[in-house]
């Protein structure tokens, strides 16, 4: 089978025109042949700079055949306009009598001027009905008033990457998703699976359990000073172990939590002469149980440097994790819930 990308673009498009142009783009490029559509989801990408994300969108569509709506919104200015580019991936030459297959389509929409504030209106008709729909918020979290009520009728799930901005900055968005019953998926939570698995496994060992239940000290190391790595997984640990401390500055009567700079991410939990040291090495996550500087036990979980595209691909396959929601409800959203 041959896969071909069909490109179409038009500046200053009027809203309904996009919908009427779409069905004709592929047949016009293929001498009238109408394709079968194979897409299994709608994936919205809210982006700052469409060009940077275009390549990624194509790669995502390779593993998750999707209608990708890439939205960039630049409010302000007098020029109200919508520019649209469409990249349709079509499989042709599928055997005699078999129509071409529209494998994925990426619709890049750049909105300028006043209409940029109403981007949800432009997106709504383009969502594929009866299929899962996700919106990946790749930019800074929205602040203040935002029409979440409109968004929730458009997209079923919101995707964030809480490693890109501190978790507390996502709080408004997380609360809105919770309030409007939108599923929330976090790329950084997904990355923390090895962290959670290793600590859960180690907890079965008496010495490790004692360290984790009542550590004297926790030292978190990261290459960036303002970074608190795997923040949502940290909240999970704190909640599950009843530490009752949130994100930094972490206050606890008996556990001292410190932050240090280092070449990679590491967590050291110490209790007396025993320590649990969790490190992210190039080939694996490793957890060492250490007694007086001697490693007495090792657990590991291999990993292979996934790209952002791999992370998203995995997240879309795995779907919503109820444990993430539970963690946020018991930590970040606790006050919202109590209220």
């Amino acid at each position: 089978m041959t896969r071909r990308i069909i490109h179409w673009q038009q500046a200053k498009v009027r809203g309904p025109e996009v919908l009427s142009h779409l069905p004709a783009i592929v047949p016009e490029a293929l001498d009238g042949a109408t394709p079968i559509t194979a897409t299994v989801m709608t994936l919205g990408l809210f982006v700052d700079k469409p060009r940077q994300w275009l390549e990624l969108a194509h790669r995502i569509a390779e593993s998750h055949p999707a209608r990708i709506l890439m939205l960039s919104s630049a409010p302000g200015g007098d020029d109200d306009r919508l520019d649209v580019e469409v990249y349709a991936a079509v499989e042709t030459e599928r055997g005699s009598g078999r129509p071409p297959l529209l494998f994925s389509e990426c619709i890049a929409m750049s909105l300028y001027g006043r209409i940029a504030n109403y981007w949800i209106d432009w997106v709504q008709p383009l969502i594929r009905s009866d299929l899962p729909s996700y919106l990946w918020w790749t930019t800074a979290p929205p602040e203040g008033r935002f029409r979440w009520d409109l968004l929730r009728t458009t997209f079923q799930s919101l995707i964030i990457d809480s490693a890109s901005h501190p978790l507390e900055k996502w709080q408004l968005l997380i609360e809105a998703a919770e309030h409007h019953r939108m599923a929330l998926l976090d790329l950084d939570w997904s990355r923390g699976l090895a962290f959670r698995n290793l600590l859960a496994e180690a907890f079965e060992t008496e010495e490790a359990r004692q360290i984790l239940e009542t550590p004297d000290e926790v030292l978190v190391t990261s290459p960036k000073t303002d970074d608190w790595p795997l923040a949502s997984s940290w909240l999970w640990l704190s909640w599950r172990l009843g530490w009752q401390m949130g994100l930094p500055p972490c206050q606890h009567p008996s556990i001292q939590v410190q932050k240090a700079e280092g070449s990679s991410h590491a967590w050291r939990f110490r209790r007396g002469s025993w320590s649990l040291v969790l490190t992210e090495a190039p080939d694996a996550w490793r957890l060492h149980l250490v007694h007086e500087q001697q490693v007495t036990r090792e657990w590991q979980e291999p990993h292979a440097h996934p790209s952002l595209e791999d992370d998203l691909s995995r997240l879309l396959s795995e779907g919503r994790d109820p444990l993430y929601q539970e963690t946020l409800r018991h930590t970040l959203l606790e006050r919202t819930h109590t209220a």
Partner: protein
Amino acid sequence: MENPLKEGLGARRRPEPFTFVIFGAAGDLAHRKLFPAVYNLMVDNWLAGDCRIIGVARRSYKDQEFRQEVGQAIQEHSRRPPDKAVLDKLLANTHYLTQDFTDADAYQALEALLHDPDGHFPQNFLFYLATPPSAYPIIAEHLGRVGLAKPQDSAHWVRIIVEKPFGHDLDSAVALNQDLHLVFDESQIYRIDHYLGKETVQNILVFRFANGIFEPLWTRQYIDHVQITVAESLGVAGRGSYYDQAGALRDMVQNHMLQLVSLIAMEPPVAFEADAVRDEKVKVLRSIRPFSTRDVADYTVRAQYEKGSVDGEIVPGYLDEPDIASDSRTDSYVALRLLIDNWRWAGVPFYLRTGKRLAKRATEIAIQFKTAPHRFFRQTDTPELAPNLLTLKIQPDEGISLRFGAKVPGPEIRVRTVNMEFLYGTSFAGTPPEAYERLLLDAMIGDSTLFTRKDEVESAWALVSSILHGWQRARGPIPTYESGSWGPEEADLLIQRDGFHWRRP
């Protein structure tokens, strides 16, 4: 001890560190399937801890030579591109033992090799019998003698994977089960049928039991008949001496096709757990009406292919293939009709056919529904409507299609048959894991759901043996079919007697 960190995490499908011992490691199966499968599992991070491989075979190798060959096999047959770091790690933990399977002393050497002196590898052993079947009981017995068949304590495990063919008939399958049970418990034995590792085969259960709309229709009230086709365009392809002893009935029907029948016909299990699923499958096999001698004559067809043309090439007939006896009566094609005597399926025929050198390679299950009870459109231009047909395509073009009638646009009522189609390859892009990857991983973590249990194997052989006995008594000539066709005329007659015809996949 309560573990608050485990709550909500979900079950981990990661095996503990273990040693994988492959008997027959110099053979084709190990090179084409087993080593690439382990490598792919490592690349995909399913093997968390270390995995040590010990290859055992009669051929003489040094460790280094064996590693080179394993590396080459992985590069040739793996679905994943070469990853040097992973490959190096796998090869560094790969060893070889030259051993005659009948030599008792050699098992002492294996035992010494398995007892890792530095304790890096715990005493978890997965044995794989990729040898000729005659060696299975011998290897099992020797493993028992040197104390390798039982785990050293409850924290460790020992499992054994047995390749097909599992017996030659009912008596030999029962004898093999008895031999294995002298040394291993049933819970340690993993009888592999690679069909069960295929995504599309596993999807049969998901399709039936994760969707609300199909199961209510899945009964004799709505289903007219079922056709299961496993067609190959290849001939015996270098396996002549094995195939001539086996034939299509033993090679395909006894295992793969009866597994498909049981997955299609089984009742919903109480849970997706090994024994719950296998209990229901066994019930189906036990409900299949046994074949009397007359039934064998009436409801089974065996045949051999003749010279013909496949994919534009002239190919020889079965009797002219290398290593095939000139007076062979082995079946390269089988068609049969099964009846399942239970509440759900009473009166619904299941037609099975499989053969070599057929028109194309295709495995599919076609479920034909009964026609609408009232011919509402009989006064129109399209009085005869094709019945609804649900086709589960196992390979190639993996997917599911549903055939139904739709109105042709226009002022008259005309109905045309159309298809709604789901294609695995387009809805789930990316390369799915190979069947052996899934099955090896399951054996490594101790999940036997997709492996066949003793009573399953014996029930399948009981049915197949009754057909074999009937054939032994028949003295007439064996029908033939032209290579590149869809089988003998006798198979068409078998299904036409009931008013149906074979689908063209």
